[in-house]
């Protein structure tokens, strides 16, 4: 009996605590909604009294299913979710280090586009080629106009010291070496295939990695003798590179776009971190070895 009473008392107390905590959360949440965003969220919450209750509900829902769905709450109280291609991992880390208001999601470009199409909640998309961005635009998951922020070139990379004695692109057809490429489904794989096709080389790959980072890691561990990775990844993983003039024409453009057609200022600011000359993102891109957009491929105008 005493035990029951104790449990009850504990429950009462935690109930009280929870109530105060809830109050606090509501106030911070409501306070942090800027004037512009209120009109957007207004669709979800009716009237000032309803607002509070709705805020509680939406906070609870947000904790459960991460977001109140695609009825769009662009409130600044929520983190800005930036989806970025895996080759941008370090750039993204550098740019958003210590910024709690931004949540980066890193994956292969095509995975990101598929997730967006499936209704994943994100605000900004950065892909590692134009094809995936085009797809996102045509599927209607991205409404802002894509902007080219950098380009990356493919290189023929080997582990440090080139233990396999790789001398050129043609060595990717050698059966006695362990070689790797990206899978054709991801941008670095598409690019590699184009380059190899044009050079007339039939690769004898031992693995088709699902992202460029995994390929670079396997090269740096010495598990593979050669592979085609982006210049930036080769640099990050400390790989040696072998001259392959056939690759120089093959570059990928990195595109950024906002998911909503008219992004609120705080999301626009995140995009400008990359698009504006001399911005923190542009600097980071440069620092990690991406090329400037001077080799700018023409952006296909979305229909």
């Amino acid at each position, binding site marked *: 009996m005493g035990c029951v009473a104790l449990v009850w008392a504990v429950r009462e107390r935690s109930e009280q605590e929870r109530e105060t905590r809830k109050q606090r959360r509501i106030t911070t949440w409501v306070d942090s909604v800027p004037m512009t965003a209120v009109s957007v969220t207004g669709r979800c919450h009716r009237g000032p009294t309803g607002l509070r209750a709705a805020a509680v509900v939406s906070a609870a829902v947000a904790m459960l299913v991460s977001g109140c769905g695609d009825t769009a709450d662009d409130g600044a109280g929520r983190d800005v979710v930036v989806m970025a291609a895996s080759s941008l991992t370090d750039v993204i880390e550098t740019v958003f280090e210590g910024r709690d208001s931004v949540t980066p999601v890193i994956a*292969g470009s095509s995975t990101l586009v598929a997730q967006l199409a499936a209704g994943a909640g994100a605000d900004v998309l950065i892909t590692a080629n134009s094809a995936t961005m085009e797809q996102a635009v045509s599927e209607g998951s991205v409404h802002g106009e894509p902007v080219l922020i950098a380009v990356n070139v493919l290189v023929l990379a080997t582990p440090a010291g080139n233990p396999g004695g790789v001398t050129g692109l043609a060595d990717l057809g050698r059966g006695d070496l362990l070689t790797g490429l990206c899978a054709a489904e991801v941008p670095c794989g598409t690019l590699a295939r184009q380059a190899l096709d044009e050079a007339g080389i039939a690769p004898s790959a031992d693995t088709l990695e699902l992202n460029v980072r*995994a390929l670079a890691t*396997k090269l740096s*561990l*010495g*598990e593979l003798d050669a592979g085609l990775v982006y210049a930036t990844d080769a640099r990050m993983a400390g790989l040696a590179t072998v001259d392959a003039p056939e690759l120089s024409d093959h570059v990928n453009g990195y595109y950024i776009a906002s998911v909503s057609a008219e992004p609120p200022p705080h999301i626009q600011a995140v995009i400008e971190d990359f698009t504006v000359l001399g911005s923190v993102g542009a600097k980071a891109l440069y620092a990690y070895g991406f090329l400037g957009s001077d080799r700018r491929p023409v952006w296909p105008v979305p229909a």
Partner: protein
Amino acid sequence: MRQRQRPRHIQALTAASPPDDAAEPGPARSASQLPAALTVVGFVALGLLALPIVGLLQRTPWSSLPTLLGESEVLEALRLSLVVSVAATAACVVLGLPLAFVLARRRLRSPRVARAVVMLPMVLPPVVAGTALLFALGRRGLVGQWLDTWFGVSLPFTTAGAVVAAAFVALPFFVVTVEAALRQAGDDLDEAAATLGAGPWATVVHVVLPTIRPALAAGAALSWARALGEFGATLTFAGNFPGRTRTLPLETYLALERNPEAAVAISLVLMAVALAVLVTLRDRWMPR
């Protein structure tokens, strides 16, 4: 302590003997004695588990299913998946059975550490497990470099590597299941057999193994199911190449990038195969 252990022990023995356990007080477990809240939450949990599967079924392109599944890549991946998962299960049985015996019957200096080591692959993110395997068995790995120089064997990027990766993550499921059964069965029967003149091998083969047969089947089924669905460790350790290391889960992932409908179709096959095997096993072998 003793009081709690004893009845469970007896119950285990009766449950392990022929399945028509009339001694089991079946009707006593009627719903009326279960608190309503437990029942409700229990069913909600069941619904949560079933919901994603319903979601999958609802998006399944039933009419184009045969075409999607008839693709040579899918069939190739299916064949490879069956080979890899069965081989991995065999490895789990061959290695896991002795390990379960050691854990259950030997006096170990630090049994907790040993058991934690066995459980580690269960909690390790599979990608990390794959990386760890590379460090150990890769061409430049701790042991792998000697395998390479002495025998010219390199596991990464081979089907054997995929089997190793799957077995690594699946082994704990077999060991934990069998060890629990061995403990529950206790060593009374072993001692009885020994008194009657049976040697250690005869005891294991004719007394212990028949007693824990349901657990053996359950453990094998669990580890097989885990091996069949294995993705991260396979990808990291064995890579991805059609016909060699691209198992169904990897094929599903790639299909998701080029044609989500195909991915749904493959997942459906994966689930159907697993469900069929598990249900069959449950009916035939496992105690209900």
